[in-house]
């Protein structure tokens, strides 16, 4: 079998295992490329029936408008139920400090909103687009990742996961994060997007944007990121390799207009996806691991 067929088969199998083993799954969808591929795979997995679960966006309020528009359009097109829960509301309800500063990241706060939503709807499985090649802690996580009632990942006590036997048995209040595209690389994602003609938000492709430089990376000027007096605002041609928050996702200089251009660009790129695009993980070697311990995706 061709490698894309192998990866697709694995993902579809996992989707059906989630549907077969859980009462109330939800698919986490942000409008980014990985979760868009997830939706595409889920549609295949359950055809001719519609998705047997809702999709949910944990909205930090710092989104790219293009990604939000894309999210809404796709959800409408496939006739899925969209649940949006806002970090802003969590901040207000729980009286949490809203991160300030030049790049105020609500990334870590998403965990609270996610856990609240899990409890509100009684979700027992959250399907996410995490990939093991993204980051060191992710590389260690199981495909069915067991989380205790607080959502915490226990990296040193993970369930054995043999062959394609995924153990989704949990008690009330516990939940599982399921990662159908665990074994896909960034390049696999793009090859698949090309093969399946999957549409994406425009910000993945080269466009003109006002940016400032932060730690050697381009960050877009927006209502959430205000330049200092010392910053030089440059209108330059960029694209995004990942779509996260406007406050913690950097753009890369790129002329890639098409999926083919992007594939060529990634193949030639000397830098990893997270390295090129995430500001939040530059802070500590274990940033992702720490977030996961607190219930993060």
């Amino acid at each position, binding site marked *: 079998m061709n490698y894309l067929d192998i990866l697709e088969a694995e993902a579809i199998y996992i989707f059906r295992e989630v549907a077969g083993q859980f009462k109330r799954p939800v698919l986490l969808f942000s409008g980014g490329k990985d979760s868009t591929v997830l939706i595409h795979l889920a549609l295949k*997995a359950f*055809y*001719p029936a519609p998705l047997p679960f809702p999709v949910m966006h944990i909205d930090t309020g710092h989104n790219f408008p293009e990604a939000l528009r894309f999210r809404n359009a796709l959800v409408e097109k496939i006739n899925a139920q969209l649940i949006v829960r806002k970090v802003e509301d969590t901040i207000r309800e729980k009286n949490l400090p809203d991160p300030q500063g030049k790049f105020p990241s609500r990334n870590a706060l998403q965990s609270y909103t996610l856990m609240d939503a899990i409890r509100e709807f009684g979700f027992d499985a959250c399907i996410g687009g995490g990939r*093991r*090649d993204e980051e060191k802690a992710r590389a260690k996580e199981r495909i069915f990742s067991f989380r205790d009632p607080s959502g915490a990942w226990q990296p*040193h006590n993970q369930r*054995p996961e043999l062959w394609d036997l995924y153990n989704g048995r949990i008690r009330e209040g516990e939940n599982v994060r399921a990662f159908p595209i665990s074994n896909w690389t960034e390049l696999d994602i793009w090859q698949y997007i090309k093969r399946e003609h999957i549409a994406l938000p425009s910000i993945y492709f080269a466009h003109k944007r006002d940016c400032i430089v932060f730690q050697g990376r381009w960050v877009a000027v927006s209502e959430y990121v205000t330049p200092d007096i010392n910053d030089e605002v440059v209108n330059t041609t960029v694209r995004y390799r990942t779509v996260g928050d406007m406050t913690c996702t950097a753009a890369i200089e790129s002329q890639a207009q098409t999926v083919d251009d992007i594939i060529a660009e990634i193949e030639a*790129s000397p830098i990893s996806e997270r390295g090129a695009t995430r500001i939040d993980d530059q802070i500590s070697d274990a940033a992702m691991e720490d977030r996961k311990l607190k219930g993060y995706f």
Partner: protein
Amino acid sequence: MDILRFTTAGSVDDGKSTLTGRLLYDTGNIKSDILETISGDEGLNLAHVTDGLRAEREQKITIDVAYKYFSTSHRKFIITDAPGHFEYTRNLVTGASNVDVMIILIDAQNGITAQTRRHSMVASFLKLGKVVVAINKMDLSDYSQDVYERIKEEYLQIAAKLDLHNITFIPISALQGDNVITLSPKTPWYIGPALLELLETYKPPMHQYAGLRLCLQYRIDDNTFAGKILSGTLHSGDKILIHPSGQAATIGNIIHNYDNVEVAHAGDNISITLQEGIILKRGDIISHARDIPLTSDSFDADLCWMDSSSALDLQKTYILRINTAETECIVSDLKFKVDIDTLEKYSDKEPLTANQFARVGISMQKALAWDHTATLPENGRGILVDPVTNNTVGAFVILQA
């Protein structure tokens, strides 16, 4: 282009991480920002590529399985980097359960150790199709053919005991890169292959069994059932049997992706309808009448105990799973244990604890349909789950009814 999955096993400090780093580095698969994080005062620390968790970086050992991805122009590779310590054997079993090839590293200076035997035991338990014995740190043994031959001879005796076949021995230096990507001039006595060459060309035995096994996962709507073809070929209109009930039916539509298809093959995830409108269940296995699976409510199996917080309890009811089929069971009979360091069979009064292997008899609350491991491994193995903690506590491979 296809995908090959392999794992590296060996004792601590035998060079697993260095080898992984070497493979990634020499094939141009480490991006420069990652290179920065693994460069230190003493230059590049290739081993650091795989140490994902904070505790691992602090203790400088590998605790759990990590996955790494790289590709060459021939193939895509998934490396399962599994731990070497005894107490993490169960994580090695997890990691190795999905690989095509296990690379067992042996430090040429230390020779075969208890860990070598233990990791070989895991390969044997999982019935892996290919073992590569990489005799590492040859640079510290003057690339000596004698050292290599001695270790090879000794290993072949272990392999015979464990019924391991299809073994390739390669003398390497992970640190210097000898015989990793290309053959090294420092070992003119070694005719090959280099490790990467083997990984690029090895063909895993796949889908060899011709009999149809369709394992059902999920009911998509009133008449449509999703499942995976484990082996064989299915045509629409086929007369089939549903196991374990043995009920006969006729295939209506076969749906693969968004298409109605006439025929589907091993490895395909499909949905089907039945002409008779019979309701299928998760866990059902479909076959043709001419080659049916075995159906029984008990069997003998090799069991690896995986739970560190509880021992095997012969009085206790566990949940048993083979593919998507589930039933309650008891492990009724502990025939003997296997000492994973000496590979000898023994019996004692102690219960089976984490990381130990045994031959057992299992009695199930209802009959399931399964196949001999030699026929169709995918339908001849499973897990035990503790119904109270919900932990996966054991893994087994069926031997006979």
